[in-house]
């Protein structure tokens, strides 16, 4: 009886329309309305219904926060809290249904939301001690995922460990990827390697050209942009396995021959380097890098107009991945300029049109570009890029 005449709980105080159950139901109603409007998707309705759903979820979240702030630990209170959160998870299920197939991000978000709220609801049902124990078990699973992400990354080109790789693929991937917890934390390991730069030679429809080099401190707006450009250049590093020895032998023989007797479009010699192994001069990209190269080529053609006449469209771009060799103490002492181009090793990653299509396919047949994915000696780069025209070299 005393309970019946007790003062209202703290959460039930305040204006009537701000009481948690009402706010939760209003928020859920907004999510439901947003979902119903899916049939009318269009340039106006879509933003409106997405805003409705977001506002509904925020309102529901505020209601849950307010309810839990005043919730007790008795069984009845716990059941009410669990029910409260379960209703919130219903809003998530409704929201999930309100996402079109192509709004996969929304579906991922709502899938997480539903799992979190159902999990929260179950946790709320438990007595405090069990709830805390369950929470720590979840935390252990979470850190298991973090360790798995780190251990499943192969080290220094080595094979990744089997168990973590399987765990990562079949258990943790749907959890760690959306949360961006996939970093292996192998900073500067096993060794701080050479840096990678990305050089683009853009050619315009009138035959003029310009070089765009990333990262470039002088041409970058902020230090953060510079770091991001460094990251993009590093994304060109992912390699596919080197071809079998018999195929590779044909590739380097052709590269060597063509370097000495270049086709008509090249002005001079583009020799293969004899001071380092042929294997180290050939770096075919992984599919991922290839796709990024295509995207970067499209971007560069679209966003770097001819500086003299912006009406002239960019029609093709040659991309070079450039390794930067760090000068040794002896070289630095001997007066080497750390910015010297001779410390750089360009690799030809392909010529693309403005739509990102590789114009010079890879292969051993006649159409295949003999220089593709091979190192181009720095002193022959301008010849390969086409800066030096054939007629200039002719007597």
């Amino acid at each position: 009886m005393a309970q019946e005449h007790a003062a209202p709980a703290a959460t039930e105080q305040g204006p009537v329309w701000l009481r948690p159950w009402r706010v939760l139901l209003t928020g859920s109603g907004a999510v439901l309305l947003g979902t119903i409007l899916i049939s009318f998707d269009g340039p106006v309705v879509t933003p409106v219904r997405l805003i409705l759903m977001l506002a509904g979820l925020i309102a529901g979240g505020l209601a849950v926060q307010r309810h839990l702030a005043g919730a007790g630990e008795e069984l009845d209170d716990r059941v009410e809290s669990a029910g409260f959160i379960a209703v919130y998870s219903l809003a998530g299920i409704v929201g999930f249904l309100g996402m079109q197939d192509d709004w996969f991000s929304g579906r991922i978000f709502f899938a997480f939301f539903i799992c979190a709220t159902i999990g929260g609801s179950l946790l709320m049902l438990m007595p405090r001690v069990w709830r805390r124990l369950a929470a720590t078990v979840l935390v252990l699973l979470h850190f298991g995922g973090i360790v798995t992400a780190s251990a499943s990354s192969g080290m220094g080109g080595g094979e990744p460990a089997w168990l973590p790789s399987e765990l990562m693929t079949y258990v943790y991937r749907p959890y760690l990827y959306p949360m961006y917890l996939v970093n292996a934390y192998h900073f500067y390991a096993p060794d701080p390697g050479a840096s990678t730069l990305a050089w683009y030679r853009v050619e315009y429809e009138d035959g003029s050209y310009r070089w765009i080099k990333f990262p470039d401190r002088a041409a970058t707006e902020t230090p953060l942009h510079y770091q991001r450009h460094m990251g993009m250049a590093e994304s060109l590093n992912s390699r596919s396995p080197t071809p079998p020895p018999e195929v590779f032998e044909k590739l380097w023989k052709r590269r060597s021959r063509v370097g000495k007797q270049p086709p008509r479009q090249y002005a001079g010699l583009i020799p293969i380097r004899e001071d380092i192994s042929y294997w180290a001069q050939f770096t075919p990209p992984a599919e991922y890098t290839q796709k990024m190269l295509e995207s970067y080529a499209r971007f560069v053609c679209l966003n770097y107009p001819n500086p003299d006449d912006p009406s002239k469209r960019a029609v093709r771009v040659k991309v070079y991945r450039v390794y930067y060799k760090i000068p040794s103490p002896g070289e630095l002492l001997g007066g080497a300029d750390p910015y010297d181009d001779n410390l750089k090793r360009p690799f030809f990653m392909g010529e693309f049109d403005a739509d990102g299509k590789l114009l010079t396919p890879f292969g051993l047949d006649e159409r295949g570009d003999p220089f593709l994915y091979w190192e181009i000696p720095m002193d022959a780069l301008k010849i390969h890029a086409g800066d030096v025209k054939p007629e200039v070299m002719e007597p």
Partner: protein
Amino acid sequence: MKAHALPDVNLERTPKALRAWEDFWFKPADPTLLACIRIIVGCVTLYVYAVYSIGLMTMVGPHAWVDTRAAHYLTHEIPVGAPPSSFDASPFMQQVDQGNYLASVYFHVTDPAWIWVIHLAILCSIFLFTVGYQTRITSILAWLGALCYIQRTPVTLFGMDTMDNILLMYLAVAPCGAALSVDRWLEVRRQRRAGSPHIDPPAPQPMAQFALRLIQIHFCIIYLASGTAKLLGPTWWSGQALWGCFANFTFAPMRSEWYLSFLKFLSAHRLLWEMVMTGSALFTLVLEIGLPFCIWMPRLRWVCIIGSILLHLGIGYIMALTTFGMLMLCMAISFAPPELVRAYLESFRRKDKHAAEHDAEQEEAANPRELAVAAQ
């Protein structure tokens, strides 16, 4: 009486190990330390994503560096491999799926006007999180907002984004708005209006301890993974590894005359060069591998924290990774005793209060008549 994580449990009947486990995770902790971390992380995050405003479309627009076609490849086509499940099969990775689980509103919104609206809304939520307004909600919104940029252009990420995401995620479950925040200021104002004679400091909370533990353990995993991975590198063993950072023009300040002279001076003195390089490499290895174990020992904790601060200040300067360094420092200071942070901040308040009282007394002594008139 000592605070305990199990207030509603008969302590004598609870196994000691369970009590220790509970204490480790849930012994109520002062939320002020988390509030300090929130402010620093919020400021860094606000800066990082405000900078996106310069060239926003080149990062998240439909024709960005990673355009919609490349984004589709990442989300739907990229092969997902797993090692073979038996020894009979091919030794190479086998494709088991396609596409990564990446989610970002910028995959779907391609209208520049709406992209700007969303960008400004995210910046707004990060700002509210930083100042601590409706922190429970804005902390989640700030984290989800940051994830939208992270997932949209994964090729542009570096260590700072990783650390920022980790901290935002843990702050989203932490009561980081319980102190040094607009929420707290509003709460104090409400109590004052209700006629409370005494305003208590923010109460210690189990969730504060829980969130701090999450940050601390993640920090230890990062250090251990980073340190043990370095053990595979020959240059870390030969002591030459850090030359690869010191003399790399892409991030070291090689344009600085004195820095270049310093490197040349080192190079001219082999013994000194070896001592500096080997010493730095050794310091890095010992710290990264030792910290995850030693930092739990109270006597060695400060040594580890100071070592970590030195390491990240060095990284911040030499490799121009200032924001990354600040976030790592946030993780390191999560090991500071929360009650110490409160006491430190309280000492400032007391000094201010004493100073104000002292000034008022001096003013009163100097102009007693004017003050009396003003009072009338």
